[in-house]
């Protein structure tokens, strides 16, 4: 130092700069690993939830996410299972990777794996494909550190233009979205909403509110589109009218949100409850997404909505189990208590119906007698529960049992009047009871009312729309027949 | 030790980025300062005084030549630094601090601390006559008080050598007098003082030895007595006509000053006093007083600078 100060200083400076440069490269590798992990999480979520891509089939051919992801799954499966130990069980048909990604518990193990030398070639492929724009599920703008120098792209990402304050920009865009909403410029909101989440893919509230605007507010002023005027859309496997097309835009928006934030229950909840249950009346999908929502850290109403949807989807036992759990956590919770009773009643009713159907099918007299007494016992049990519950819904269910009893005796007109009383007693049963009324009226040769005739016509119409493939149409016709089959 | 500061061939050239524009701030300075003396370092602005002092303190680095302080070549060493107190010209002292806080900070830089430092602060404040203001914020200090606090910080480590750059500039007459007294007291304590100044009257009053610097070169060096050897006569008369004055000046008597109906004549040392008086009588001048006169430092200074200017012109 004393003898050659300049040389010493130069050496120290060189050393410090080298460490800095080295650290910089190291950070680049870490950011790359993070980007890889984020992408795996997005595609893994896709796999786990069976989501569709957000682009149409013809466009999805341009992307290579799936092939790369399956390579990653193959490369990681054995190691990951070994690392996670025996307690870890992947769900049927799911890769260990996508399953492990669901919650935080296995994050460390996955990250280790993603960083490991074993996955280096795949990581390289990922970066190459990312830079070539061949990956669909990437939060491109977040990857500033590794996005530079993309061939044929805008090169330096938008990220840099905001000096790392992308999120602030996203907020200001959101303020503008809000402003458009209040001035009724709905068509201007949509591109801005998309820009907003492009800038900040973790802006969960933008997804939620955006989807809410699309699914609820935008569609509120639109008219119902009759089925013959709707158009078949392959991607959604559904006939879309004006409103429905917005429902699906909303659903896609939420699914994008889920891919980018797979661990936020709100997105699953809004998708399952807000869109599938409330708007599309698709209880199966509602159950699916509410199940995922309930697995993540959530608010207390999430599982309750799940149990409700399970009930609506006919999964009484699961719903019952759920309400019992809820009661354990919140003793004396009145809704739980009521729901448990209701489900017990419904199960008894279903058992009764099954026993009766079997009795009808059998030829053995003794067996039929046994089944019929079983049926009566279940019916009595159900009736007991309904009477005990003493509320409009239960009263209506009891009326249904009465109606069936009358119908069995051939007293169809009486049966219909019981059901008619019942469906006004409990509005939630209107559709179910109306179907039964039509069935009884047909069985008894009674004339259908004008509205009932209309309903049947609508149902007939509902099996087809513009551009619907023949195979789908046939399926739907079969479904409708199944629904109209006599139950009593 | 016979010498506290010694420079040999000390030169400083400020290189310019333009060829031939280099500034020779100091050229071949050979200087020795002895213990216990007050050395006055004189020179007009830009003559190289501050450059020399900065080199002595290691604030700038010599282009050529050597410096030895207290016999040591490493002038940045703690041993040297502990024995030098420095009062820069026109320095600012943070005005959010109190008098004693400033001194505490500087004392801490010497590695002082605790009780020892506190006693020393009191001593130094006493020495510069600032005890009354020790708890006051510097914001409320007058210029003289600030200068005294500056002197106090230079004294805090009780150094052997004090280097003071323009210590009395900008002070009122009373403050100057007080400063002068402090400096004299310090000399009496056995400290070595190097004072750079152009307040010549001040310096003349207290200094033992003088160096006159001009254009980076030491023009004169010696004790006051050695340098101011010129002695002559000054004659005060009531008045004299221009004609008479021109005749007298041919003989060696020059008019020097005209004030309040008096005229002061200066008699060149070549002329005998008696002859001069005779000449006055011949021209019928009314004498008011006759007094012997020694050349002032100012005159020496002006003369030296004038000579140097002539030399450089030639």
């Amino acid at each position, binding site marked *: 130092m004393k003898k050659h100060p300049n040389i010493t200083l130069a050496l120290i*400076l060189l050393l*410090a700069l080298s460490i800095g440069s080295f650290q910089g490269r*190291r950070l680049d590798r870490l950011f790359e690993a993070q980007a890889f992990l984020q992408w795996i999480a997005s595609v893994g979520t896709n796999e786990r939830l069976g989501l569709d891509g957000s682009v149409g089939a013809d466009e999805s051919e341009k992307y290579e996410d799936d092939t790369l992801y399956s390579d990653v799954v193959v490369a990681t499966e054995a190691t990951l299972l070994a690392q996670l130990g025996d307690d870890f069980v992947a769900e049927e048909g799911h890769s260990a990777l996508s399953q492990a990604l669901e919650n935080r518990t296995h994050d460390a193990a996955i990250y280790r794996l993603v960083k490991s030398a074993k996955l280096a070639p795949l990581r390289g492929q990922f970066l190459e494909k990312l830079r070539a724009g061949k990956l669909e599920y990437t939060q491109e703008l*977040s990857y500033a550190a590794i996005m530079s120098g993309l061939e044929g792209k805008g090169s330096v*990402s938008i990220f840099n233009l905001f000096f790392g304050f992308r999120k602030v920009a996203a*907020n200001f865009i959101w303020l503008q979205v809000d402003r458009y909403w209040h001035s009724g410029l709905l068509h201007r909101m949509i591109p801005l909403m998309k820009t907003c989440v492009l800038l900040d893919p973790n802006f969960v509230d933008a997804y939620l509110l955006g989807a809410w605007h699309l699914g609820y507010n935008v569609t509120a002023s639109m008219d119902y589109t009759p089925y013959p005027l709707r158009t078949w859309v392959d991607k959604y496997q559904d006939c879309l009218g004006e409103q429905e097309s917005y429902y699906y835009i909303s659903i896609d928006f939420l699914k994008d949100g889920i891919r980018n934030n797979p661990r936020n229950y709100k997105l699953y909840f809004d998708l399952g409850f807000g869109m599938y249950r409330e708007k599309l009346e698709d209880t199966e999908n509602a159950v699916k997404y509410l199940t995922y929502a309930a697995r993540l850290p959530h608010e207390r109403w999430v599982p309750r909505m799940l149990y409700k949807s399970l009930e609506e989807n006919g999964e009484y036992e699961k719903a019952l189990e759920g309400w019992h759990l809820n009661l354990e956590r919140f003793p004396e919770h009145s809704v739980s208590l009521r729901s448990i009773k209701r489900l017990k009643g419904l199960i008894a009713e279903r058992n009764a119906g099954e026993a009766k159907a079997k009795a009808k099918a059998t030829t053995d007299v003794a067996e039929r007698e046994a089944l019929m007494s079983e049926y009566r016992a279940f019916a009595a049990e159900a009736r007991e529960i309904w009477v005990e519950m003493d509320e409009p819904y239960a009263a209506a269910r009891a009326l249904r049992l009465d109606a069936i009893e009358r119908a069995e005796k051939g007293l169809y007109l009486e049966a219909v009047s019981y059901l008619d009383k019942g469906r006004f007693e409990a509005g939630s049963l209107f559709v179910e009871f109306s179907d039964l009324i039509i069935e009884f009226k047909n069985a008894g040769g009674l004339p259908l009312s004008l509205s009932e005739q209309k309903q049947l016509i609508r149902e007939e119409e509902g099996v087809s729309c513009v551009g619907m493939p023949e195979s789908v149409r046939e399926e739907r016709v079969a479904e409708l027949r199944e629904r109209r089959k006599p139950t009593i | 030790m016979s010498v506290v500061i010694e420079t040999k061939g000390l030169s400083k050239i400020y290189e310019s980025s333009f060829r031939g524009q280099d500034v020779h701030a100091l050229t071949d300075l050979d200087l020795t300062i002895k213990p216990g003396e007050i050395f006055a370092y004189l020179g007009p602005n830009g003559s190289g005084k501050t450059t020399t002092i900065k080199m002595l303190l290691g*604030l700038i680095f010599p282009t050529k030549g050597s410096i030895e302080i207290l016999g040591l070549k490493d002038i940045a060493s703690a041993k040297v630094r502990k024995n030098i107190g420095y009062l820069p010209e026109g320095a600012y002292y943070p005005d*959010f601090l109190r008098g004693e806080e400033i001194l505490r900070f*500087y004392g801490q830089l010497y590695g002082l601390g605790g009780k020892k430092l506190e006693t020393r602060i009191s001593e130094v404040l006493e020495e510069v006559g600032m005890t009354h203001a020790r708890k006051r914020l510097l914001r409320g200090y007058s210029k003289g008080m600030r200068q005294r606090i500056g002197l106090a910080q230079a004294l805090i480590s009780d150094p052997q050598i004090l280097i003071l750059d323009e210590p009395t500039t900008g002070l009122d007459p009373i403050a100057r007098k007080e400063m002068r007294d402090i400096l004299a007291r310090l000399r009496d304590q056995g400290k070595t003082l190097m004072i750079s100044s152009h307040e010549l009257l001040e310096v003349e009053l207290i200094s033992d030895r003088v160096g006159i610097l001009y254009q980076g070169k030491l023009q004169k060096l010696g004790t006051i007595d050695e340098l101011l050897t010129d002695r002559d006569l000054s004659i005060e008369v009531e008045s004299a006509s221009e004609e008479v004055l021109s005749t007298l000046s041919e003989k060696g008597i020059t008019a020097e000053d005209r004030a309040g109906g008096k005229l002061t004549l200066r008699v060149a040392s070549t002329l005998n006093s008696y002859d001069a008086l005779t000449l006055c009588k011949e021209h019928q001048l009314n004498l008011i007083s006759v007094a012997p006169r020694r050349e002032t430092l100012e005159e020496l200074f002006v003369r030296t600078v004038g000579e140097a200017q002539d030399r450089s012109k030639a």
Partner: protein
Amino acid sequence: MSAAVDYLRGPWHIAVFTWREGIRKKTLVGFLLLSLFVIFGSFFMSSFLNQTTGSGQIETEIDTKLIKDICVATISIFGMLITIFISASVVPNEVENKVIYTVLSKPVRRMQYLLGKFVGIQMIVLANLMLMTLLFLIAIYIRQGEFPKLLLWSALLTYFEFLVVSAFTFAISCSASSAVLPTIGGLFIYLTGNLTEYLKDVSNRSEGTELADVTIGRIADGLYYILPNLQKFSIKTEILGLSSGAPLPPEVAEQIPNLIAYGLAYAVSGYVIAYWIFRRKEL
């Protein structure tokens, strides 16, 4: 050991002195007030959102996000300005008012002096950052009723970003005689530090065979590897998006210490450059 303590005693007193002087600077207080104004002003921004929406419950979360993002940006920008102004002015100011003469004529080596000044600057910058973060925490607490702990990580990373800019600005300030040039230089460092990615772009684009192309590409590449990239610190804004209750995700937990090491390495480089300039500087 005691030699090291002795060596550091002087720098420590200088640091404390710098700190006491620095916190009284008017520009600093001004910036601080301005940033507080923005932090609490973000409340109004969100209430403006509330007013027009009317549906309270869902919006409160967006409010908080808005406040968080704006506050982190504010802390970042104003903190950076304060850092640059302080780092640029401490040494030149002392040269200008000649206090440096009185200090360097004491038994203080230039290395010690610079160390003291640099540490003093860091104390001011840190105090500022902590004050702003604290106020931000309070602002969020008023809004949300809980302290966002992740913000502390964010603040930590923000500091190391400041440290890099501070060190290089300090180096410039050591070569300058007034604070103007180093201030401009500091702003320049901040801007270019954020645009380092463009160098990579330049080197990628200059793939021609011509000598000029190749040379420019090489130079850009070299600079890209040497210069600090402040964008790397932008995970400070990403951290806030994470859920606050859970521990840090492993990838972020690994990035933080590496970023700190990165910042330190460049801070040391900046300081070495500063000393190199200052070592034989004519004062």
